[in-house]
C-alpha cells in the first residue's frame, strides 16, 4: 500500500500512529492498527527528522504493529514477550485522551486567567548557561550525587547480554568481490578463514552462490568436501554485485 498523504510533523511514535489512524478516519482498534502498520513503517524508514535517541521508540511501535498484523494473518501466532508488553491499542487510546486534554490545558495556559503570589514569581524562562534552581547548596549536590550513584548500581548489576553482530550477505558479497578483483583466484577456505561462527560461514556460502549466479566467478571443486576454488569469470561485469542483490 502506498502512502497516499503526507504527515506534516509528528512528536513521537504514538503521535504519528494517531495521525495515521485519524487520517484514515478509523476508530482505534487492532484492525485499524493493522491497516496503517505499513504506512507507519514507511514513515519511519529513511525519515531523517527522527532524532536518533527516539528511533528505538519508533521501532518498538513498528514491531508491535507488525505483530498485530501478523497475528491477523496467522491466528495461531503467539509471542510471550510481545504479549507481555502493554498493548498498543490501549496505549494509543489513552494517549489520544491526553492529547485532547492537553489542548484544554494549553487554552488555560494561553488564556488571561492566572493567579499571582506575593513575590510574583513568574515561571522562569530559560537562560543559557548554568542556572541552579533557587536554594541549591553544596549539601543538595552531595545528596543528588549519592542518589545518582545508588541509581547506577542496579544498572551495573544487570546481566550482560549483547546482540551478536550480524554479517549481512551484502557485506560478504562485497568482500568476496574485492578479493576476486585483486587476486583473480582464491578458495572458499581462505574466504571463510577467520569467520566467527557457523552463520557467517553459511552467509559466505550464499554470497558465493550469488556471485556465481551473477557470473562474477567460476567455481571448481575436485571432489566432495574438498576446498572450492574460486576464479574470476573472464567476462566479469564491472559494477558492484552487491547493488544487484536484493534480500
Amino acid at each position, binding site marked *: 500500500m502506498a502512502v497516499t498523504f503526507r504527515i506534516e510533523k509528528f*512528536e*513521537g*511514535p*504514538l*503521535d504519528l500512529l494517531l495521525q495515521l489512524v485519524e487520517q484514515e478516519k478509523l476508530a482505534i482498534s487492532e484492525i485499524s492498527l493493522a491497516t496503517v502498520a505499513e504506512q507507519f513503517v514507511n514513515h519511519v524508514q529513511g525519515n531523517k527528522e527522527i532524532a536518533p*535517541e*527516539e528511533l*528505538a*521508540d519508533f521501532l518498538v*511501535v513498528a514491531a508491535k504493529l507488525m505483530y498485530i498484523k501478523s497475528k491477523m494473518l496467522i491466528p495461531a501466532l503467539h509471542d510471550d514477550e510481545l504479549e*507481555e*508488553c*502493554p*498493548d498498543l491499542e*490501549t*496505549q494509543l*487510546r*489513552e*494517549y489520544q*485522551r*491526553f*492529547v485532547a*486534554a*492537553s489542548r*484544554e*490545558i*494549553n487554552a*488555560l*495556559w*494561553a*488564556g*488571561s*486567567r*492566572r*493567579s*499571582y*503570589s*506575593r*513575590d*510574583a*514569581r*513568574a*515561571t*522562569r*524562562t*530559560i537562560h543559557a548557561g548554568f*542556572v541552579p*534552581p533557587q536554594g541549591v547548596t553544596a549539601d543538595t549536590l552531595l545528596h543528588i550525587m549519592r*542518589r545518582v550513584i545508588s*541509581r547506577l548500581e*542496579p544498572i551495573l548489576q544487570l546481566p550482560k547480554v549483547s546482540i551478536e553482530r550480524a554479517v549481512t550477505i551484502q557485506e560478504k558479497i562485497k568482500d568476496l568481490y574485492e578479493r576476486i578483483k585483486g587476486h583473480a583466484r582464491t578458495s572458499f577456505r581462505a574466504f571463510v578463514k577467520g569467520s566467527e561462527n557457523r552463520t557467517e560461514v553459511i552467509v559466505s556460502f550464499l554470497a558465493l552462490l550469488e556471485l556465481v549466479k551473477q557470473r562474477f566467478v567460476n567455481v571448481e571443486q575436485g571432489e566432495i568436501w574438498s576446498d572450492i576454488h574460486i576464479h574470476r569469470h573472464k567476462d566479469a561485469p564491472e559494477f558492484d554485485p552487491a547493488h544487484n542483490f536484493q534480500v
Partner: protein
Amino acid sequence: MNIDAKLEALLFASAKPCTVKRLAEITGADADDVKKGLDALAVRLEESGSGLMLVRHGHEAELVTRPDVAEMVGALLKAEAYGELTRPSLEALTILAYRGPLTRPELEQVRGVQSSLILRNLLLRGLIEEHEETRLGQSTYGVTVDFLRALGVSSVSELPDYEDLRGNATVADVLSQLDEAQQP
C-alpha cells in the same frame, strides 16, 4: 484566634507555598487540624468574595490572587506573558497534572517516547518538581504550584475532566502492566 486565621497570616507572610508539615510545626497544631484549617480558610475566602484564594497542591498551600483580577494585578506587577509551550512539553505537563506524580518510565509509557529532555526543561522552568518519594527506584515528578497559578486554578482537581482522566481505568492498566514488566 482560629487556626484558619493563623494559617492565613502565615501564608500571607510567607509569599511562597508552605507545606502542611511546616505549618503544623509553626502553629503547634497537628497535620490533620492544619488541613481542616486550610479547608476552612479556602471556604471563607470563597464565600466572603475575597480577591485572594488558596491554591492547594499535594502537601502544599499558597495564598494567591484570584484569576478574575489577573489583568489588573498583572498590570501592577508588569508581569510578562508566559512563553508558548511546545507540544511535547504540553503533553508531559498534562499527563503529570492529571496523573502525577509519575516516574520517568511511567510518563514515557503514556507518551510512547523518551522524555528525559522534556523533564529537564520543565524542571528548569519550575513547572514541575521532583518529589521525595520514589517508585521502583525511580524519582517521581509532578507539576508545581507555579504551574497551577499559571493556569489560574486552585487545585489540579479543577482541571477539565479531572476525575475521569485521573481515575481512568485504562491508564491504571497501562501503568500496572509497566510495573509488572519492571518487577524483578
